[in-house]
């Protein structure tokens, strides 16, 4: 069995609302192993995105802890090492409109302090099937192409885990299928783990492990 790269224990998170405190995550335990793919399904508002943000270090839990293995170093809280060890793929791609495809990919490496990495970015874009569109601006790319750029961006820093939040949510069915296939392939090829948040039972079934988030707790689907 491969080693654990991301671990969450007893995660709790609630938000203030006019009706009082709203507990979104009551007690979430999760272990993600190197190279595995797992999906998290749940209804709207069940806390999938919140869980993904806690796993990626974009938010801090009210209770519990998240630990990420960073190379040979011991486990660290992801919010202390944003941009390292975890790659994000968002539903709306979230590319920088003023940068072209390869610059968007290379930006992640630059922010992580790895220099411009132009060649690496172009290789990754070729890997995701966009080798011929590396100089195109996001406005000149289709939804599927934009998501391919976002996947390449998530991979450029060789993260141990890719956190994908509804990556096919904005795409038509055919393109969604292509993107899902690509995501699973390249993640496996890069030996990264994949945590996929999705509504789609079909896409979820393509992952090795399937979980359901309901009532603030995770359970096998």
């Amino acid at each position, binding site marked *: 069995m491969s080693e654990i790269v991301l671990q969450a224990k007893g995660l709790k998170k609630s938000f203030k609302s006019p009706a009082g405190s709203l507990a979104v995550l009551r007690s979430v335990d999760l272990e993600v192993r190197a190279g595995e793919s797992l999906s998290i399904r749940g209804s709207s508002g069940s806390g999938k*995105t*919140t869980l993904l*943000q806690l796993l*990626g270090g*974009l*938010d801090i839990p009210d209770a519990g802890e998240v630990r990420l293995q960073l190379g040979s170093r011991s486990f660290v809280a992801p919010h202390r*090492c*944003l*941009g*390292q060890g975890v790659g*994000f793929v*968002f*539903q*709306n791609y*979230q590319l*920088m*409109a*003023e*940068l*072209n495809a390869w610059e968007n990919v290379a*930006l*992640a490496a*630059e*922010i*992580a302090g790895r220099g411009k990495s132009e060649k690496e970015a172009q290789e990754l874009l070729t890997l995701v099937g966009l080798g011929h569109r590396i100089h195109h*601006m996001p406005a000149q790319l289709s939804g599927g192409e934009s998501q391919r750029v976002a996947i390449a*961006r998530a991979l450029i820093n060789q993260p141990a885990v890719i956190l994908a*939040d509804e990556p096919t949510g904005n795409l038509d069915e055919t393109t969604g299928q292509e993107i899902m296939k690509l995501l699973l392939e390249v993640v496996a090829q890069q030996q990264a783990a994949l945590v996929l948040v999705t509504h789609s039972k079909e896409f979820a079934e393509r992952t090795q492990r399937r979980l359901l988030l309901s009532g603030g707790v995770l359970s096998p689907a």
Partner: protein
Amino acid sequence: MAWFFHLALRQLFPPGKRFPAFAIVSILGVGLGVASLLVVQTVMNGFGEEHRLRIRESFGECVVIANRPISNVDELVSSLNVEEEVLSISPYAEGPALTRRGSFAGVAFVRGIVPTDEDLPARGYVIAGDFNDLDDGRVVLGIGLARDLRVKVGDKIDLWSPVMVDQAEKGKAPLPAELEVCAIVRTGFSEVDNRAAMISLRRFRELWSLGNKVHGVILRLDDPNQAPVIAARLNQGKPDLRFVPWQEIKKNFLEAIRFEKTMLFFLMFIITLVASFSIGSTLFSAVIRRTREVGVLVALGAKPWQLVGLFGLQGLWIGALGTSLGFILTWTILSFRDSILGTINSLFGDGDMVANVYQFSRVPLHYDPMDFLIAAVFTLLVTTLAGLVPAIWAASRKPSEAMRDV
């Protein structure tokens, strides 16, 4: 180049956009603010310089006034001649007199001078006649006094000195001195133009019964700006004399010019400030519009100081480009200042105010590098701060808050 430098530049000037409206309008706003500030300052400097020159040329660079008439003027001249800061020395005597032509009369402040002296004050402000024609039988009048007496060059006036009044009181019947007007001057200073009458020193001594005495000397200095320091040094050990530098002669007037310039600087600075605030508000809305991008950048590992740099730099570049544009606009406007003023005058039918009111042949200007430096530093500071405030706000947001919008 750090990534946030590159991204800031791209956000300000997006590739493929022929007209980056936000950047151009912001730069233009700052440029116009800086230009209005500098045009006003430079013209005010010009007026100040012209007035200072006029004061020196109308009253002298340093006037030495004696407590009582000086009998040993040659000794004083010799002692001042050895001072290397002193370029020339002109003895003078002065006093009030009554002037009359026909039924028109006026009180004149008469100054007796050495007509051949090339450095005499007011020599450069002759508007009619010739100063070189001044001799014992002629007089140079200020324009106001000439008008009061209804005289022009070539006319004759009568002059009564206080000595003649003394003689009349003693029962004598003195005849007035008859003098021909050889030149008329206009300096722009009412105390000179309305009262001045210049006659030869020899004639003055005769009319005022001064003998060989004079009332003082006028000095020309190698560095007029240092007049107060030189005057103070020369005054040492001479308790009967008072060395008055030109800055003191018209102290209130010079203070008024300086105060006017300071006030205009603040008024113009407010214009630049308003332009900078509008940039701040535009940048603020731009940052809010980019909240999601901020969230993504944080997710990619961007540090708060890098986000501050990303948006702060945009303010700095708008400031730098706006200031440069302001400098170019200033130079262009000032190069065509007379044409611009001519157009304004013809539009509003004001006539040539610069010539009529100030007696300047053209709008004066004086470029002061310090004004440009201050304008640049202030503008860069304000526009950078205008960018920094929303940047700090963006950087201080929790990434999940921004990401929730994703």
